[in-house]
């Protein structure tokens, strides 16, 4: 478990990860909307960009994007649940652990499928 001096605890780590993953996804959204726009106005250039995404480093980035997206989605749901049903805040640790369980169970097979082509799978 991460040990942070600033208040610390699960909520603090959840908040930091939420912010980092959110900004990372925003950066990708900037890239992604522009590349999809390119697919319409300059198909050749789009296919060149696609080749970068499909390269081994591109696939690692793709996996990290998926991880950021999944974490941000699960933790966002956790935020909404506790915003609108405050009594559930008493169980914030359990909800935090449950969201990581879902993250691992869903994330591992997805990560495997994304990375598989790197070693020719």
């Amino acid at each position: 478990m991460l040990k942070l001096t600033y208040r610390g605890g699960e909520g603090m780590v959840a908040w930091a990860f939420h912010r980092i993953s959110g900004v990372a996804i925003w950066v990708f959204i900037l890239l992604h909307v522009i590349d999809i726009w390119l697919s319409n106005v300059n198909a050749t250039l789009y296919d060149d960009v696609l080749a970068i995404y499909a390269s081994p480093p591109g696939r690692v980035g793709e996996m990290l994007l998926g991880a950021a997206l999944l974490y941000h989605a699960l933790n966002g749901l956790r935020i909404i649940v506790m915003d609108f049903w405050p009594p559930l805040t008493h169980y914030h640790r359990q909800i935090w652990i449950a969201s990581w369980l879902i993250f691992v169970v869903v994330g591992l097979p997805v990560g495997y499928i994304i990375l598989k082509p790197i070693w020719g799978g």
Partner: protein
Amino acid sequence: MTASTDVRPAGEPGLPAEAPARDRRHYSPIGRPRPTGGDRAELAAWYLMRLTGLGLFVLALSHFLITHVLFDPANQTAEWIQAHRWESNLWRYVDGTLLVLVVFHSFTGVRTVIQDYVSNGRARAVILVVLVVAGLLLAFLGIWAVTTAPVPPP
């Protein structure tokens, strides 16, 4: 629907030092407290962040599942997008909705980050204007693509 003021004082970054240990145990810095200052735009933004978040939970995750797990991005060339992905108008509406939700949600989120870390009023105002312009431009580019991409003849 009331904000969680019973467990988390709104508008405060943390519990006061004299808070009893019981409250401290229940306290968790989760998301932003619901704005209580009477600013209707801020309150609307708070609700819209959660509403678009729910929409994105479904749309963004299913988008990622389809484009990265069920299909391999390596095969989704410009030609493939036009011939398969956007062959039906339904998918253009789905992708257009996803685009609008994600541009609103991500730019509003970055605005929150800017407000937290940029204290200089002038710099903050300039960055916020840049964010709004960039967000609108990005939404325009995306809607342009999703509405005008031709469907190749079969």
